[in-house]
């Protein structure tokens, strides 16, 4: 997580600030909410205790191929997280991950704004060329927001993950710096 450092990125509705250790209880609460968890790639994990979050954080914080931000409203309320995974400088690409953990903030444009901010960061600051993501095939609200930000459907990955023990198809989407 070397790149994020003390970076603060400002959008029209949100501010992105680096994720810190003190955010762990917040993440545990978000990831423990069944409605949030439903859409998470790691929804099959048995337990979202603080201890599990701490373990995951110890991996994430030391991984140089990741940056991880907390999304805050302009008045400083944390509502979710966004980050880049698998930053590959040689191939100039990364994967985007986002979740709005506060359900009452869903569908109000916060995620779209956060994505626009991180797209600028990825393309202008990190000089990447391709940003990709995978999402559940039935995540209509998410897909609509991704398309608003310029993501294009590239394929359907069959049985890509399990949800409640059942295989689920996922959509792969990407946006290029030239798009």
């Amino acid at each position: 997580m070397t790149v994020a450092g003390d970076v603060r990125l400002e959008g029209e509705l949100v501010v992105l600030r680096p994720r810190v250790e003190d955010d762990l209880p917040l993440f545990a609460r978000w990831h423990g909410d069944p409605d949030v968890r439903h859409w998470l790639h790691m929804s099959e994990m048995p337990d979202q205790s603080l201890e599990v979050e701490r373990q995951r954080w110890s991996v994430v914080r030391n991984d140089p191929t990741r940056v991880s931000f907390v999304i805050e409203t302009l008045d400083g309320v944390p509502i979710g997280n966004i980050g880049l995974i698998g930053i590959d400088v040689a191939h100039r690409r990364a994967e985007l991950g986002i979740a709005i953990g506060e359900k009452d903030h869903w569908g109000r444009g916060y995620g779209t704004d956060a994505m626009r901010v991180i797209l600028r960061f990825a393309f202008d600051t990190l000089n990447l060329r391709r940003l990709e993501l995978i999402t559940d095939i039935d995540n209509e609200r998410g897909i609509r927001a991704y398309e608003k930000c310029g993501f294009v459907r590239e394929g359907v990955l069959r049985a890509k993950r399990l949800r409640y023990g059942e295989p689920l198809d996922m959509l792969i989407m990407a946006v290029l710096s030239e798009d």
Partner: protein
Amino acid sequence: MISESILTAKNVRLRPAEESDLAQFQCWLADDELRRWLGSVNEQPSVAEEFDWYMSKRQDPDIILWSIEAADGGTLLGNVELRLSPLNRRAEVAIGIFDRQYWGKGYGTESMRLVLDYAFRELKLNRVELKAAEDNVRAIRSYEKCGFVREGLLREHRQIEGRPVDSVAMAVIRSDWEAR
């Protein structure tokens, strides 16, 4: 981890990768064209880097690595690995026939079939996936022979020699394998 299972077909044998294979791997990786197709190795690794690569595979519980050798005589040909995602019962596969004298002769195809059978039969996975450079025609043909289905075209997914190249996303899912 290093696989303890030995898988055998007519022309190839997959066996645990050993430290004594590394010098040969490292030497082969001087080949620009080989590295170009592998996609993951930008420069020839040093002996020390190759050793680190091996140790990292050995220590990772979600990786299974085999060396590929000719069934007849045991000549080392390359390697193949599964990168497991146990939570979602899938794996990514990466294969390389490093010795170019053995390219285009079916050794990779036969090795891949062994790995797929192992993944679906022994590991009970739902999905095995890979990404290939779109212009790696020989590899893609081999993957299709093994039952891989094209699922998408990933635009400018890699940068090769300074130019953007698309990748093909391919996978075999359990129902494909069962219908083979």
